[in-house]
């Protein structure tokens, strides 16, 4: 069964596009507790893959392995053709460079509270990517405008709503020109109105062809934007398929139970 779904994944993914992220046999445990028990997943460039499942099922850990915030115990991850880790060791030569190519947006935003919105977007450009100051400021202003927050550029994070903070966080991740964006439950800490704002920005990104991996409990949104949906439970991929397949015709008992519980009409 697992092999069949992997085949299906290759079938659906194999649209001739190069792979942005290829994960094979990924394993991770914390203090002897297995969190990821052998994950295989292909993310073609320009596609959006959503990872859904219960809390504690390993979704966030999987995501954090992709930019090596967590070092996997085994298996390989390949980003744009470059193997970044294998058998529990980092093989990526330039970790900062990798992280500039793989942007991340956190559940709790994690903006830098001592800097204004525009400075949050400037910082890594200048100090990680060595972008000249003027160019960094120009790009920051452009990106804040793109996420609809030009008027909040001079505000500090604690003066902004959750939705505004998360949009600044998206601008901050975009500033380094990533080829893949990771979203770790980007709307879980937000009220419905703020959630709407953030999803609008993400929808725009999807339209522009950004490759995205999204961990979410927002099943209606996952269904709307995802090219591929993966259901994870107990550290393994239980089932995967197109959004329509997975939400309308789930086959595994656990998927059926999860989807019917969470997919109440939005």
């Amino acid at each position, binding site marked *: 069964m697992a092999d069949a779904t992997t085949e299906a994944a290759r079938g659906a993914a194999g649209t001739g596009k190069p792979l942005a992220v290829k994960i094979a046999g990924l394993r991770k445990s914390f203090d002897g507790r297995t969190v990821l028990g052998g994950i295989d997943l292909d993310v073609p460039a320009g596609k959006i893959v959503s990872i859904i499942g219960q809390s504690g099922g390993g979704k966030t850990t999987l995501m954090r392995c992709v930019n090596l915030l967590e070092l996997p115990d085994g298996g390989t991850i390949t980003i744009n053709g470059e193997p970044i880790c294998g058998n529990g060791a980092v093989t990526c030569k330039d970790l900062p460079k990798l*992280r500039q190519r793989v942007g*991340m947006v956190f559940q709790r935003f*994690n903006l830098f509270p001592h800097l*204004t919105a*525009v400075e949050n977007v400037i*910082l890594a450009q200048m100090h*990680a990517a060595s972008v000249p100051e003027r160019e960094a400021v120009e790009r920051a202003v452009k990106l804040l405008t793109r996420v609809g927050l030009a008027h909040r550029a001079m505000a500090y994070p604690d003066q902004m709503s959750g939705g505004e903070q998360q949009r600044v966080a998206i601008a901050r991740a975009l500033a*380094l020109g990533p080829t893949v964006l990771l979203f770790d439950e980007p709307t879980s800490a937000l009220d419905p109105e703020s959630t709407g704002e953030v999803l609008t920005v993400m929808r725009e990104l999807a339209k522009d062809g950004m490759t995205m991996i999204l961990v979410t409990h927002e099943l209606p949104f996952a269904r709307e934007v995802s090219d591929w949906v993966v259901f994870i439970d107990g550290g393994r991929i239980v089932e995967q398929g197109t959004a329509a397949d997975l939400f309308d015709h789930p086959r595994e008992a656990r998927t059926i139970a999860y989807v019917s519980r969470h997919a109440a009409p939005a």
Partner: protein
Amino acid sequence: MPSLSSLFQVPWGDYAGSLGGGLLRTLAYTLASFAGAAVVGLGLALMRLSRLRIVRIPAGIYTEIFKNVPLLAIIFVTYFGLPSLGIRFDVFVAGVLSLVLFYAAYLSEIFRAAIAGIHPGQNEAAQALGLGRVTTFGRVVLPQALRLALPGTNTMFVDLLKSTSLLVTISAAELMTQAQLIASETFRALEVYLVIAAIYFVVCYPVSQCLLWLERTIQAGVPLSLGRRRRLRLAKALLEGKA
């Protein structure tokens, strides 16, 4: 009950020079000791936050020792004790060294708590943006930790300024030593020490008020560095369509 005029009989004009010199000395001790204690304290704080026990433990032992020994004992050991081992410091060096050893222990506690108080998500966000360890510390953790450490550090600064008066015991030529000299010449201890206490107050009070102002200014998010001001000006100009 003596009248006010009988209380103030010391010819203060004659002592203005020695008081001024003493005050400058006091400030020199304060600034040199504080700078040293801040550097050593930050180093100790970082050591105590290390993952390695071998780094963490010595810093912990140092802090506990110097926090639990009187400053006066440290001053006596450095100035009167060490010469018997052939280690001789001039009085300024001995004074500064004692104050640095003592206050580094306290500042390290303040700095450690401040650094540990930064949310781990900050480190993660910085890493996820490709910032290296040193840049993450310098640009993300330290600026936030400084804000947290400022109130405690300011208190320590004023405390240190007052503690320089203990250096009277090694005749350090600072304010209190001058006071002692004047008192022994004039036999008017009450008057002399009241005036000296007033001088300490007149120096310390504005300093602590200034530090409070600095605290509030930084807390309010007013950018103090030239680089930040320049970037914010540029961003503003771009937003208003002028650049």
